């Protein structure tokens, strides 16, 4: 297994930090990509951060009320070694499906 840390992303607008309001996942949870992870508040607004990837939550950084700086670790995921760091999605192997049928007269072959 590989550990993938996810730092507090750059929230734009020159913001340098955010306060943790509430965690929406817990350590040990399996999360999907885009699933809401945490509510944070900046000096400008409150927002919900979606998960950048799927994986198991290994560690949460910061309790509600704690201030986390942009770039500091927010959460650590654990993912299977062979999917770590990939850009894109591991293709799923599905049974081949078809709509087209073939017909041919092969008598003269």
């Amino acid at each position: 297994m590989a550990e993938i840390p996810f730092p507090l992303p750059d929230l734009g607008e020159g913001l340098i930090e955010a306060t943790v309001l509430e965690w929406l996942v817990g350590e040990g949870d399996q999360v999907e990509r885009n699933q809401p992870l945490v509510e944070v508040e900046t000096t400008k607004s409150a927002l919900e951060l979606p998960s950048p990837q799927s994986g198991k939550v290994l560690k949460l950084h910061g309790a509600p009320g704690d201030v986390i700086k942009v770039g500091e670790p927010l959460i650590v995921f654990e993912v299977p070694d062979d999917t770590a760091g990939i850009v894109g999605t591991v293709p799923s192997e599905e049974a081949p499906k078809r709509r087209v049928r073939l017909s041919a007269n092969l008598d003269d072959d």
Partner: protein
Amino acid sequence: MGRHAGSPVHHTVEGTDPGLNVQTHEPESPAPLPPVLLIHGFASSVALNWEQSGWIPALLDAGRRVIAVDLPGHGLSAAPEDVDSYSPSRIRADLLQIAFDEGARPLDPARPESGLDVIGYSLGSRLAWEFGATQPALVRRLVLGGPSSRDPLAEFDLAAAQRFLADGTPIDDESTANLVAMALASPNSDMYALLSLVEAIKEEPFDAAEAVPQQPILIVAGEKDERAAGLEALHSLVPSAQLMLIPGRNHVNAVTARAFKQAAIEFLS
């Protein structure tokens, strides 16, 4: 992603196009329920109030079709120069036209997808209150977040704000100073458009008792919300309304609260 303004059906109210940014979001598995109109707060936007806060994904997950509109001078909407474009009555008329253009239809007991549910936050709650009260044939249910029976914008010291913006003269009135600070901090908002909005609101201040919505109402506010003053006064006008306070939250950070979203989705289901 939402579909943006420029949909095939597009009508203007009284012949002028306010240039409002409209987004509709379609759920993957639609529930047999009306669309949900989202109205954001002062100096906020669809992006801040509803997207980044996680409301739109949460509503889509619940199978709800979402119509979200940036108010004039906010987000991606135009910032017209004439004050009339910002008057609450004009905004309500535009919202009504947009809701119809995006497929909302009057309530019909035989059709569960008919009607329109409305969620407003802060100034959006005031607009939702009036919208519900004036459109009983369309609006099915209302969720009012961080509302106020008084109108902080009506009491806004416009002259002090203009002096502050011109030469930095400090603003004495605390509420005005806070609202200006909030507006200055808000990305994508046009300060002068926001002041036009304030000017228009001063012409048409909120009077909750003037028109009281008859729909089922859920009122939600942060326990520490200093702006949601007079919740009790609103509640007394609609005693049947459900009231929910979110522990530890204030006017800014109650928006994202999971408990708020869950209560709203449940109330509107």
